[in-house]
């Protein structure tokens, strides 16, 4: 099973990519990068996941504390499972003094290549206590079969 960290931009043209990187490094010195929503600072986070294989299904678990159900989008196409959405800030921070922030907010995306032999039509997802659990059932014929041997 392959996992692809989402890069966002096209990596097809290396020269273009180098120029873009150069631009971004130059932009670092402009001290106003906070608002620029592209490039190195686009803050598209890849949340951590666990993938567990069980006899009948795969479980993909992802920690998304503070993400509302309406801001979450789980989709599967061509054996690629995509978890994306937006994590919005806690509350209005107007007038609040912030002492310390270790958490992130903004958009996130994570892509998981699923193995063949899954039943994409029956993928289920559940968000509970800030943990997303996606259940990907295996197709009937790909499940391990128990063959009972009869003693004659």
């Amino acid at each position, binding site marked *: 099973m392959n996992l692809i960290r989402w890069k966002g931009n096209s990596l097809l043209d290396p020269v273009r990519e180098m120029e873009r990187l150069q631009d971004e490094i130059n932009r670092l010195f402009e001290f106003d990068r906070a608002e620029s929503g592209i490039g190195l600072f686009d803050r598209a986070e890849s949340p951590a996941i666990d993938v567990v294989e069980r006899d009948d299904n795969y479980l993909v678990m992802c*920690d998304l504390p503070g993400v509302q159900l309406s801001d979450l989008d789980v989709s599967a196409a061509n054996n690629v499972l995509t978890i994306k959405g937006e994590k919005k800030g806690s509350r209005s921070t107007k007038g609040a003094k912030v002492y310390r922030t270790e958490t992130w907010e903004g958009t996130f995306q994570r892509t998981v290549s699923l193995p063949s032999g899954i039943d994409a039509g029956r993928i289920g997802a559940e968000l509970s206590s800030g*943990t997303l659990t996606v259940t990907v059932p295996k197709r009937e014929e790909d499940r391990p079969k128990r063959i009972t041997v009869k003693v004659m």
Partner: protein
Amino acid sequence: MNTKELETTDRGIRYDRPLGRISEDEGVVLLRLEMPGVAKEGLTIDVDGDLLVVTGVRAEQENSGRYLVRERPRFNFRRTYTLDETVDRNRIDAELSNGVLTVSLHLKEEVKPRKIEVKGR
């Protein structure tokens, strides 16, 4: 509120440290801790003298299968903060929603900025 942290390893039990955000607004210090997988039943918040100890027991991890990828923290959460004199020990509220714990620490009345009304004659 002092944000100094302490290492918490009592009797060799390992904990993961939840990520937090501390802000202050209108006399209330808001401590927001991300504890995914922790339900209300698994959460304990203790105030012991100057220490605020938050412990969150994660829901049972999946262990009937084989982990192909394992990136998430796997231990229970614990984090300790020290409270200073300005926090009213009797007015601490906590709320857990979507795996995010918000602890509201009210400051004592006498340390809040006070507006003095000027009486005109």
